[in-house]
């Protein structure tokens, strides 16, 4: 369990994290979402006491990070896959990390194998691709077999196979009862991986809930109706107060009414329906709606 309480971090006049508080429960992958510059990475650094917050604290199973004697056994964190000396081999990078927490050398080879880097463990990190560095970063996270895992954009630079692999790894770790907090910009990936969400904007908590509740609350819902005589439905639907969007000659998207109402209406009119389905917006739609007021950096306009 991670408990973040009243975290505030300021860089000069810029308030990066603003009295942020949330909890991450064990046994689930929790997505940490927010627009660019919303304070996700800063929050993670503050949680690990790498940045000094003005106020607030973070507890890992009730203990502040600095009180952990061998933190790698309790919290595994990957904040940036680039935090590696390029002239050092991947194996040596893991060796010094392992040595600092009294982890045996044999574990280094185990985690290298786990992430598929055994063959290149002796090569210098400068020869690694971004995806290989991400795998090395994940190996460092797994070194101490920790029960809490914090990852900042772990899928960056990974190919589709790598993204699926990291998703499988994280969901497997969560299924073992571990606490997993992952930030990512890949919302479709997050929708597949996370069960809980912490959404922040401009350093403040916007929402903490399950993914399903979040989508339910913020994403748009509508009814898709497909019929060869769809035009005959428009007037009765309008009379019910529905907003109607004509997609094509046979398809309508209807808002403001639910499937049973549309079905009953069609039956009353003796109309044939080819499709009647409830549609819900994606996590991406929900995220954009929830963080619309908190977007610090947005594009100037649509493509010309």
């Amino acid at each position: 369990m991670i408990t973040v309480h009243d975290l505030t971090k300021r860089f000069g006049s810029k308030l990066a994290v603003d009295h942020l508080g949330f909890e991450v429960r064990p046994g689930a992958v929790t997505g940490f979402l927010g627009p660019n510059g919303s304070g996700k990475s800063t929050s993670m650094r503050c949680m690990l006491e790498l940045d000094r917050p003005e106020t607030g604290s973070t507890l890992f199973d009730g203990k502040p990070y600095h009180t952990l004697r061998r933190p790698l056994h309790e919290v595994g964190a990957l904040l940036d896959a680039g935090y590696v000396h390029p002239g050092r081999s991947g194996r040596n990078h893991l060796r010094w990390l392992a040595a600092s927490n009294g982890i045996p050398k044999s574990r280094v080879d185990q985690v290298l194998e786990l992430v598929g880097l055994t063959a290149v463990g002796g090569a210098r990190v400068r020869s690694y691709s971004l995806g290989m560095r991400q795998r090395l970063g994940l190996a460092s996270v797994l070194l101490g077999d920790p029960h809490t895992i914090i990852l900042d954009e772990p899928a960056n630079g990974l190919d589709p196979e790598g993204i699926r692999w990291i998703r499988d790894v994280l969901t497997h770790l969560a299924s073992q009862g571990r606490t997993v907090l992952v930030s990512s910009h890949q919302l479709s990936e997050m929708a597949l991986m996370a069960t809980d969400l912490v959404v922040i904007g401009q350093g403040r908590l916007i929402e903490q809930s399950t993914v399903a509740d979040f989508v339910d609350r913020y994403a748009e819902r509508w009814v898709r109706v497909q019929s060869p005589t769809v035009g005959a439905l428009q007037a009765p639907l309008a009379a019910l107060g529905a907003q109607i969007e004509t997609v094509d000659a046979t398809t309508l998207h209807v808002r403001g009414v639910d499937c049973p109402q549309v079905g009953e209406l069609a039956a009353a009119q003796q109309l044939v329906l080819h499709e009647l389905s409830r549609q819900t917006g994606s996590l991406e739609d929900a995220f954009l709606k929830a963080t619309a007021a908190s977007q610090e950096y947005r594009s100037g306009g649509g493509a010309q």
Partner: protein
Amino acid sequence: MMNLLRAEWIKLRTVTMNWVLGSIALAFPLVVTLLTAAFTNNDDGNGGLDTEGLISVLTGTTVVSALLCGVIAAASITSEFGFGTIRPSFAATPRRSRVIAAKGIVVVAATTVLAAVVQVVGWYAGGALAESQDAIIDLGDVPTGMATMVGAVVLTALMSLAGYGLGLITRSTPVAVSVLIVWPLIAEGLVGALLSLVFSSDSIARWMPFQAGIRLAVVDLFDDGPSRFTSGVYFGAVSLVLVVFGGWLVNRRDA
């Protein structure tokens, strides 16, 4: 603490640049000393190499090694900030002062051993070569000989400590290395000369920290400056202050 010392030792020995600089720091004084010993002719009546000359060459060239060791020590911490590895370091050991202490101990110990090897090899190999040229090499001939060679080792240790402190303060390899080179070789000379002019006393310049430190490795100290021991303690104190201040800054700042 043993775990941290082991981790820092792995870090130090797995970066090629440290081996390159260390090799130069090892080879430079030895090559110069051995060449001097081998090619100084004692039969031409021009006063060939004697014990004092051998020690002077050995310890004098060790000053350059000491500067290189200071660079290694500075880079050992600045590279961590440069490549961001300081974050996993502090995430793995949240009590930063322990990381700072372990790294300092490892790098100072490594450079001290290097300097000791230079003195031992330089003295015995250089002495053997000089004697093959009919020189008479006897440590008893120079009362300050042993103190000078030990002083050269201490100077290397303290120069590493100073470099490490500068690295902690600046967190930048170019800045730390520039200061480490410019300060002792140029800035102290200028500031010392200026102060000597202002106060009409040459002895003030000898209290410039690095100049005082270098006195550890000088055979003859026939002037009114501080003694070898006092110079060493003074330079050691300055180096320690740099490390303590740097450590305090690192503890206070974001990683």
